[in-house]
């Protein structure tokens, strides 16, 4: 058995890759559901209903999809420039921390310095602070990579733990809410800074609109601007991009800043739209799931929206499934992880074909 590069990669193959990957994922996970002793057909039906079967299901799925769109975009932007940002999780938390630092209550009202500001301005400052925090956090590994050749997969991944411990320290120390009965959690945001609800009796908030608008914006930047062209060129072949006179270092740093800012914004949006205060369990790995979402979308910004909704639906639906048929809801994480692996294989198969030798043995 050997791999041969396909001379032409068809568009259809690239579009079908995620669909095929999802089908294979569901087949593989069906085995696990069966092993857990549940009826496969019913389990998947409940999963589907739980994720997409009702107004409530949709509202929960979209709520969950909101930060996932942003972390997915963050990963897509960075990966497109061949900067492997595995640190969206840390950037998200740092963004959330910055948001709370700017917009958090002091003695039940806005901080003294912010009290005189119109709430719109304060909101802008909060968003900017969160994005800046995320951007700076990714710029550090980007500079290390460009200057010293330090592998950014390692640095961004490990920074997640450092940031999480740092946030933990803040939530148990200077930024701890004194009224939180001893729980490590921050003060709540000033109420005016919270995002509006999109649907009544649901948790869907206007952060979703932000996220979708940004996906379209990133797509437009990629497609229509010089910066987008440069990002794609640097990601595909940095040496050729440099030869053609493109500022490779600047483009990489700007892409890192954009990626980090998007992940930081995910943190801001979670705090302002859903929780209103920061805790250490705010994100169940949104940053890591962003990698899966970006890969499923083939790094396409608008595709990220679709794949984020899909993954969110599975995560939400798995809760219902575990209640209804007694499969542990860890199955959701398994599905997402298998989806990533299937997608990697599908992407490879779109570019290569497998040949079986007639003799049945390779040299």
């Amino acid at each position, binding site marked *: 058995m050997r791999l041969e590069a396909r001379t*032409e990669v068809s568009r259809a193959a690239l579009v079908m890759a995620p669909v095929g990957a999802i089908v294979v994922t569901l087949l593989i996970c069906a085995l696990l559901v069966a092993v857990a002793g549940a009826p496969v057909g019913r389990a998947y039906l409940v999963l589907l209903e739980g994720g997409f079967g009702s107004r409530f299901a949709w509202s929960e799925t979209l709520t969950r999809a909101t930060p996932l769109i942003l972390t997915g975009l963050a990963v897509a932007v960075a990966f497109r420039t061949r900067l492997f940002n595995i640190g969206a999780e840390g950037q998200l938390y740092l963004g959330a921390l910055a948001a709370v630092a700017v917009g958090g209550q002091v003695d039940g009202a806005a901080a003294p310095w912010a009290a005189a500001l119109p709430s719109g301005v304060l909101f802008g400052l909060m968003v900017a602070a969160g994005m800046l925090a995320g951007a700076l956090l990714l710029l550090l590994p980007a500079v290390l990579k460009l200057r010293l050749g330090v592998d950014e997969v390692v640095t961004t991944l490990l920074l997640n733990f450092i940031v999480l411990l740092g946030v933990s320290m803040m939530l148990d120390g200077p930024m701890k809410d004194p009224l939180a009965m001893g729980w490590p959690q921050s003060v709540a945001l000033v109420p005016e800074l919270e995002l509006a609800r999109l649907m009544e009796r649901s948790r869907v908030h206007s952060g979703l609109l932000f996220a979708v608008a940004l996906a379209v914006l990133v797509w437009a930047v990629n497609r229509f601007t010089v910066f987008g062209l440069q990002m*794609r*060129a640097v990601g*595909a072949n940095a*040496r050729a991009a440099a030869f*053609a006179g493109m*500022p490779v270092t600047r483009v990489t740093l700007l892409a890192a800043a954009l990626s980090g800012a998007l992940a930081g914004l995910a943190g801001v949006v979670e705090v302002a739209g859903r929780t209103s205060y920061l805790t250490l369990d705010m994100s169940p790995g949104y940053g890591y799931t962003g990698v899966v979402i970006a890969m499923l979308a083939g790094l396409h910004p608008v595709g990220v929206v679709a794949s984020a909704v899909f993954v969110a639906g599975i995560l939400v639906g798995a809760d219902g499934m575990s209640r209804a048929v007694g499969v542990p809801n860890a199955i959701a994480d398994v599905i997402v992880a298998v989806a990533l692996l299937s997608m990697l294989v599908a992407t490879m198969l779109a570019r290569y074909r497998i040949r079986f*030798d007639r003799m049945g043995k390779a040299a």
Partner: protein
Amino acid sequence: MPQASPVLRLSHISKRFGPLLANDDISLDLHRGEVLALLGENGAGKSTLVNILFGHYIADGGSVEVDGVALPPGNPRAALAAGVGMVHQHFTLADNLSVLDNILIGTEPLWRWRQQRGAAQARIHDLATRFGLAVQPRARVGSLSVGERQRVEIVKALYRGARVLILDEPTAVLTPQEVESLFATLGQLIAEGLSVIFISHKLDEVLRVSHRVAVLRGGKLVAERDARATSKPELAELMVGRRVEMPTRVPTNGAQQAAAPAVASLDNVTVPSTAGRMGVSGLSLDLHAGEIVGIAGVSGNGQVALAELMSGTVAASAGRLTLRGQPLPAVARRWIDAGVARIPEDRHAEGAVGDLLVWENIIAEQLGNPAFVRAGVIRRASARRFASELAGRFDVRGGGIDVPTRTLSGGNMQKLILGRALSVRGQHTPLLVVASQPTWGLDIGAVAYVHRQLLDAAAAGAAVLLISEDLDELMALSDRIAVMHAGRLTPARATAAWTLGSLGLAMAGAHGGEATRTGVEVPHAA
């Protein structure tokens, strides 16, 4: 020479890669004591064919027989055992081992107390003297020249009992003197009854060393000719499928151009070596408007550093480099804006971004041009109009301007890069053209096209720096030639003052040499 029963017989070999039929029903015989040349352009199917023969690929159909016995497909070990040896274009030697170890690798069982080094050495010595292949068994391969490495490869194949030797583009990296010694070795090999398949696209060589010539085009065997009964023009036409006119030029003696001030001037310039890339030191050279200056040399002697220096991608660590009298920082953007047309050595790694569309690559050097960009947004309509106009003018074919650039053939990609580079100053001729191996791996038609463009650029007043390993190309195009060896450059002399022999000596590092004594000094040569 040919005898009744062939040593090697290829019957109806076919191989398909996706939509591409790389080998289409090819049948060939090789006889004892014969040199068979396999001639064809890039992509004609030569490499595919020998890779099938040697077992790297598995044919979709057909068979390979050695002495009447079929070889199992896809098994290089079986090919070796049957006496088929291959010398690849890119050598397959371990740099950190000695010549002896490289030859012995894979010939001995893994579990044995003692290697039979003494006996092996004696056999290598015997092979070396019989075939005129001087090798030092104790030398480390990493310290050998390209010609010496090639000899090691040949000895390695012979040591394993090869009776059929496949040489893939063996002369591409050699000096003229090394080519002569290779040809002498070939003579001895066939005198001893071995057979050789000689792959090349250089017609002179093919006519000289081979008995028979098999011409491949588009995956098909289009002709077999007796080498004595054919001619260069006939082979060229068979290879390309149409008549090709190579542009020629009468070199000037440089006096006219020398009167003008230098467009670019290197004064005692040094670029440090990096891992895998030799630097240059003490380089001095003036380039004048309207002249073509050729740089000859065996690859790896500092040509890459010179090309990078003149493309604005690496800075000099010492000395002075000026463009129209002004120093210029090593920022590619600045060199492009100054009107330097740059054609890099490696089109895929450096010349174009394969994943970008053709039109995006065409405007990639012009992202600061307000005609194509407004407020950071690409003006697609005008950019694409420019791109399709340029693609038309430079004859870039292969699916239009909206396909990924990597789908273009080598020739079309090179035309894209050439067109992009030559239009750095819009309608004006570039100030300086830096062309590094501009015809490497191109078919004859594309080579003629590139040559014509370089000559036109010089005629229109550009200074052209042509770095090439192809001496015929340098002799045909250059007004002056300088030779690079071990990071140093000889003075540039008028082309007429060089012979292939004197160039070869200078390429091998002979100091002074014929050229100095017989050469006509050009007044401005630095």
